[in-house]
């Protein structure tokens, strides 16, 4: 029956050839036909040109433009009242810039891969959220962001000027503007957010939490006496342990906010070190291990498929957690939890007071235009409107007044009576517009306000010696991928503190050895070389 097999192999070959030929044709056809289909009148490029030619008039004249629909991808779940809010918002947008907005929400746990697949497929969407702590670096290196160097200032003048040219330039990549930076907190000093009522009961005052050890001891004490309490000292969000390890030190990741890439600066000295090899990192593993074996860490965290494991507003058992400083939510949280457990109250302390953290003053989050966007000009106009038009911004971020939020003054909001975050429309400001433009909850406590003031005041941070430096990964691309694989495999386990201390030791040694084998030293050397070169200039 060899013959039959041979025949089928031949057939396969024929089919593949036919397929390639056919799909080639198909691809070309589709490419040729798609722009007219998407925009019947002027083609995509001429649309951009129209905008360019209108430059001198600044305010784009409303009548001339055709109506377009813009598609935005955001991580998360679709908020309540989405359709109603979008209807209202789109009426306003149609009137101002002849555009409507359509948002697709992708669950957090699949956002990164969905973005990659959609970009790879060249799917039609206009803009999306990304950040260094997501996969902005990969997206940039694969050409997944539209170069808007020539479009930005023309189409979104208010936003451009508001961000300032200097800030936009700081966030360039290879000399070009890709994502639009969203300024938020300058850096994230670690904070302990905890149940103040419980702390008081055990004789703790805020000034007694100075180090991560203080926090752990407090947790041991509470959990030791009251078995129903949960310490939850896991770092639920990327970066906590990275920061914890270097608590009280000036630290800078290269590229900034890329916690997974080895190679960082300490104390603002231009010497690249492998953070995973340091004593500090080791000490935080021991710290986590102590917490794990002492019952402070949820042992199922390794099993969890959940990206959001605790519901901050329904979880009355957890006594606190180390993480990013609160951005105005303490009041709401106190209100929600005290409904379940009367007397509950939340408070926070910044664990890094006294250290001026180093900052390159770069953004961590970006609004990115997709290379497949047919209307980059209109996307920029939309972002400009969200930046400059308070009414549109409020609708985009907080929904319909009265139904989704109640405005309190110019820069605060509260939820309508009896409702909470999960029941109303809300979009995250940090995916689209600067923080100073957003409202904060009217229930924000003094601690909240102090912390917001602290993390946005440049005086609390030291400018990095390598501010303006950007790392070009091309020379060590393959090493970065290999090291990345090792890091994803080990980091979560190591930092969860799982296992006996002997297990931890051997696992840690294994981790370092594998990093070496994957070429970590080459990456460090390359980073050092580029930084040296940068500093020479």
């Amino acid at each position, binding site marked *: *029956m060899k013959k039959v097999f041979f025949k089928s192999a031949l057939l396969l070959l024929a089919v593949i050839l036919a397929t390639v030929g056919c799909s080639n044709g198909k691809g070309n056809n589709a490419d040729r036909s798609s722009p007219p289909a998407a925009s019947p009148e002027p083609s995509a490029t001429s649309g951009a040109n129209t905008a360019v030619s209108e430059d001198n008039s600044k305010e784009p004249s409303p009548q001339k433009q055709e109506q377009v629909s813009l598609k935005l991808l955001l991580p998360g779940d679709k908020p309540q009242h989405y359709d109603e809010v979008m209807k209202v918002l789109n009426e306003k947008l149609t009137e101002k810039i002849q555009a409507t907005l359509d948002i697709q929400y992708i669950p957090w746990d699949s956002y990164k891969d969905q973005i990659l697949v959609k970009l790879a497929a060249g799917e039609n969407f206009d803009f999306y959220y990304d950040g260094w702590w997501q996969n902005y670096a990969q997206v940039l290196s*694969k050409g997944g962001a539209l170069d808007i160097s020539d479009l930005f200032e023309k189409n979104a003048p208010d936003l451009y000027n508001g961000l300032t040219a200097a800030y936009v330039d700081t966030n360039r990549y290879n000399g070009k503007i890709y994502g639009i930076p969203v300024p938020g907190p300058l850096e994230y000093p670690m904070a302990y957010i905890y149940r103040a009522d419980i702390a008081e009961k055990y004789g703790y005052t805020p000034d007694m939490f100075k180090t991560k050890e203080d926090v752990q001891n407090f947790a041991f004490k509470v959990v030791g006496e009251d078995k129903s309490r949960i310490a939850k000292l896991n770092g639920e969000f990327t970066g906590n342990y990275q920061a914890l390890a270097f608590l009280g030190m000036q630290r800078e990741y290269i590229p900034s906010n890329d916690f997974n890439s080895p190679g960082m600066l300490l104390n603002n000295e231009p010497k690249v070190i492998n953070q995973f090899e340091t004593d500090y990192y080791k000490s935080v593993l021991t710290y986590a291990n102590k917490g794990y074996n002492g019952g402070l860490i949820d042992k199922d965290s*390794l*099993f969890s498929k959940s990206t959001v494991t605790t519901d901050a507003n329904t979880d009355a058992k957890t006594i606190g957690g180390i993480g990013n400083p609160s951005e105005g939510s303490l009041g709401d949280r106190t209100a929600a939890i005290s409904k379940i457990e009367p007397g509950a109250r939340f408070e926070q302390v910044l664990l890094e007071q006294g250290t001026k953290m180093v900052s390159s003053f770069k953004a961590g989050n970006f609004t990115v235009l997709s290379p497949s966007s047919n209307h980059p000009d209109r996307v920029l106009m939309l972002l400009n409107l969200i930046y400059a038009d308070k009414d549109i911004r409020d609708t985009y971020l907080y929904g319909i007044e009265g139904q989704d939020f109640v405005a309190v003054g110019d820069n605060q909001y509260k939820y309508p009576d009896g409702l909470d975050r999960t029941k109303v429309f809300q979009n995250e400001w940090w995916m689209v517009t600067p923080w100073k433009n957003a409202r904060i909850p009217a229930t924000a406590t003094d601690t909240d306000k102090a912390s917001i003031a602290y993390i946005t005041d440049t005086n609390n941070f030291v400018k990095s010696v390598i501010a303006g430096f950007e790392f070009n990964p091309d020379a060590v691309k393959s090493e970065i991928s290999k090291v990345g694989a090792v890091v994803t495999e080990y*980091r*979560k386990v190591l930092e969860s503190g*799982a296992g006996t201390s002997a297990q931890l030791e051997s696992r840690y040694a294994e981790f370092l050895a594998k990093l070496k084998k994957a070429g970590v030293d080459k990456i460090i050397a390359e980073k050092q070389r580029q930084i040296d070169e940068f500093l020479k200039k």
Partner: protein
Amino acid sequence: MNAKTRARTAKSLLPGQGTLYLMALPGILFFFIFSYLPMFGVILAFKNYNFAGGIFGSPWAGFDNFEFFFTSPDLYRITFNTLFLNFLFIVFGTLAAVVTAVLLNEIRSKVSARIFQTFIFFPYFISWIVVSLFLGTFLSSERGIINQLLSAIGLDRVEFMNSPGIWPAILVVVYLWKSTGYGLVIYLAAITGINPEYYEAARIDGASRFQQIIRILLPQLRPTVLILLILAVGRIFYGDFGMIYALVGDNGQLYTTTDVIDTYVFRSLRTYGDIGMTSAVGLYQSLMGFLMVVLANWISKKLSDEKKGVLY
């Protein structure tokens, strides 16, 4: 066949044959569209994919994507895990199915046999997402049934999520739980299909029930076992993505024993977005799989002394 008869056959068959092809057409088209068209994606394995260029516009990369994978320490591990886990599944799966089928055949009460079969078959119908939830109720460190039992009898709790060594065993148990019923049905059918005259003859010769099983039943099962084994060997380079991704997820601690080619490919895509490399691994897997099928068929040919293997 002389020319005359051949002409007649052709005449009588052709109109009918047309109908046959017409009937097959939708299915053939389906495979052409959903399987063969995407196959041109293999060229991605030789490209340095970027989003702006897409499939046809991205620059060629030669064998770079393969080099990355073949120099990676992961290659050995994921290939080993894929083969090892599949080997365990095949061996234990076949054993469990054959043994339960033989034993169930001994149960004379039709109602009981039917009830047992219903129970054993049922897990086959549960989605892996639900199975992963089931597994969590057993293995959870604090709340899981197994650890509740262990601590109730005074033993140390086991942190399953942190013990890669026992995961092949866990996966085998889950696999057996979910798919023994399927194999059972097939083998049971093979057993009931055996000509009763064989037993009759054996009984006349004075063979005990046990001897009948050894001498008649098992040899009669051999072809079925072989067919299924060979089909399984043909797919031995394919890890069960649905199963392993649902049960292990992103727990890096367990990768040493559970990471298979399919989960690795998916993870490379989501963590590095490296489509070229992902395609290269996919191609490697397809080629190895193809080799295995040819090999398996060749073996089946040798074993059965026939001209035709199981597959072609």
